[in-house]
């Protein structure tokens, strides 16, 4: 006698027990009776759902029946078999699934069939996935791209490249489609020189989300992409040099720093903006060659560039760095003043701690600290001096100006630590109480907490929330409709600025800039 005989007349609890047992034993003898229960449901939702579960379990052991069921006349059973074939990766199902996919017109059912085919991952399905790359439903296209990526279908490379290139069209670049996202991921997974070179070229994609996805993909690929990035650095324009430096810094491999130092030695970082990005990358990686290059960078005169050098060295303080810096600081030249200012403004407490022992260097640093108008910076170093202790430190603490809050408030957002420090120094210099944040989200948090700002300075490209979105949100916040917002950008492309202007940016300033330029712009805006 079969387990399911007279099932419909049994008690609810017995029915549950029986179905649970079948789901556990997966006994094929129950298949015909279960299929009958699926096609003629008992009408109780929980029982009907358990029938599906039990059937799934039994079919998982019966590949041939599952494949046959995919052509059954009952639509529910058909879909169930299609799903089971995908879930358990039944290879013999792929030819039937391919013919089903070719004939299917309903997008939902097509999605089911393609999903199962993608899971089975049989190369025989490649033509079907290629065919539906031009389907109107973006989910179906995205699924096909994923499958082609998984199957390493090199024939689709050109089409995938086209998807990414087409997404830069003037009427499309403002939005990152899911198909563009999947195309980037698929090309990255192919990992061939051709696909990776293409992605490196597209580091400068017009859409910030696509740029971020490409950057993330390269960062996770790591080593294979380093030579391509270095070539792009050497041959590319200023923007390309900056973008590749950033990615090389994120990858953080020794080869990244070595390559960047070699390019630097060849004189390929003449542009101060490029040097700034290069120093930041070297600071992230921190190899011996990179640190030597950073130490050489201590002769930089531009305030911002010098801050990226100091910021980089701050992460790798060693006796060599300390000896060199102590000498430079104690020399009492113009460069000593610039260096001291850079250490203070970038809040380089580890360097300060190590340098303070040298009396001459300590004096130069404390002098720079005394003219700082930034209460947070002063507090930070006051605390450090207290920890260092001793009579010289006590005397220096007594010399520090009492912190006073600025009457007007300013907000600056930038993911670069040295840029943040620079903004802070400029804003406090102008008498603002300055708030800084490493991304748009944290910047907006200040506004949500009820802070009111007289001026806002933001970077364009930042993680978590970029400048564009931050500006959009600020403009939609009551009370901030007319607050002047300055966007700092390295993008030379007009398209980006148009987009930013539409979002509500009041003025732009292009990196690199002299502190006076930003000061002048701020004063012009707040009148």
């Amino acid at each position, binding site marked *: 006698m079969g387990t399911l005989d007279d099932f419909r007349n049994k008690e609810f609890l017995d029915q549950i027990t029986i179905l649970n047992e079948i789901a556990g034993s997966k006994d094929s003898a129950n298949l015909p009776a279960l299929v009958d229960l699926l096609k003629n449901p008992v009408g109780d939702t929980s029982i009907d759902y358990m029938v599906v579960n039990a059937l799934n379990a039994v079919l998982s052991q019966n590949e041939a029946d599952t494949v046959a069921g995919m052509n059954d006349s009952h639509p529910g059973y058909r879909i169930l078999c299609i799903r089971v074939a995908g879930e358990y990766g039944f290879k013999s199902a792929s030819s039937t699934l391919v013919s089903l996919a070719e004939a299917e017109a309903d997008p939902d059912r097509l999605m089911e069939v393609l*999903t199962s085919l993608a899971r089975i991952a049989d190369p025989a399905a490649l033509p079907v996935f290629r065919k539906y790359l031009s389907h109107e439903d973006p989910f179906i296209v995205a699924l096909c791209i*994923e499958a082609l990526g998984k199957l390493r279908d090199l024939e689709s490379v050109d089409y995938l490249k086209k998807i990414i290139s087409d997404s830069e069209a003037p009427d499309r670049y403002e939005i*990152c*489609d899911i198909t563009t996202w*999947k195309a980037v991921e698929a090309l990255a997974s192919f990992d061939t020189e051709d696909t990776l070179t293409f992605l490196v070229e597209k580091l400068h994609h017009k859409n910030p989300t696509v740029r971020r996805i490409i950057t993330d993909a390269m960062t996770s690929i790591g080593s294979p992409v380093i030579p391509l990035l270095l070539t792009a650095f050497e041959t590319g324009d200023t923007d390309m040099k900056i973008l590749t430096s950033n990615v090389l810094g994120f990858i953080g491999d020794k080869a990244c720093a070595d390559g960047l130092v070699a390019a630097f030695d060849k004189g390929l970082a003449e542009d101060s903006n490029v040097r700034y990005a290069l120093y930041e990358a070297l600071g992230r990686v921190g190899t011996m060659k990179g640190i030597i290059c950073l130490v050489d960078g201590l002769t930089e005169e531009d305030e911002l560039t010098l801050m990226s050098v100091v910021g980089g060295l701050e992460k790798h303080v060693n006796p060599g760095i300390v000896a060199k810096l102590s000498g430079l600081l104690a020399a009492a030249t113009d460069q000593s003043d610039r260096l001291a200012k850079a250490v203070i403004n970038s809040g380089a407490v580890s360097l300060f701690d190590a340098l303070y022992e040298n009396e001459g260097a300590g004096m130069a640093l404390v002098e720079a600290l005394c003219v700082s108008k930034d209460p947070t910076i002063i507090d930070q170093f006051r605390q450090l001096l207290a920890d260092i202790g001793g009579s010289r430190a006590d005397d220096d603490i007594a010399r520090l100006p009492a912190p006073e809050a600025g009457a007007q408030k300013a907000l600056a957002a930038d993911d670069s630590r040295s840029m943040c420090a620079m903004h802070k120094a400029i804003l406090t210099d102008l008498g603002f109480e300055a708030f800084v944040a490493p991304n748009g*989200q944290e910047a907006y948090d200040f506004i949500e907490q009820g802070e009111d700002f007289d001026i806002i300075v933001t970077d364009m490209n930042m993680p978590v929330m970029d400048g564009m979105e931050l500006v959009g949100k600020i403009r939609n916040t009551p009370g901030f409709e007319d607050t002047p917002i300055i966007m700092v950008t390295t993008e030379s492309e007009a398209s980006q600025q148009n987009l930013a202007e539409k979002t509500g940016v009041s003025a732009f300033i292009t990196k690199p800039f002299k502190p006076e330029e930003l000061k002048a712009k701020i004063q012009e805006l707040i009148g």
Partner: protein
Amino acid sequence: MDVELAKPFIKAAVDVLSTMAFIHPKVGKPFVKKNNTATGDVTGLVGLTGKQSGSVSLSFTKDCAVAIVKNMLGDEIEDIISDVKDAVGEMTNMISGQARAGLAERGLVFQGSTPTVIMGDNHTIAHLAKSPIMAIPFTTEAGGFTIEFCFE
């Protein structure tokens, strides 16, 4: 396979809203967001754990959320704020439940947390995972809403 995960939620959203609130949403073109925040006036957020973990949010505009409550409760609205909160939480729960059942039928088993409802004009909330977020905009006669997915 993010795309595969998204479909059941879309279907569930359309099903639940049309059966429970008599609102018939139209699916817009999905897109990717780089930041991990959801924006809206009323948001229901569910955390999902299983083979992959992540979060799904449904962010409604104020008009859309109010329309849902009116359709569900008719003239029985007592306190619009708490009713909206309750209704969006309930909707999110039902959509999450139905979608998870759909995924389970494909062998993708997820546990869902109890929904959290966040209210406040144009607020932002953070998704758990750092991966790109897929956003699917919907339009209804009463205003729009967005479903967002984020899976590790």
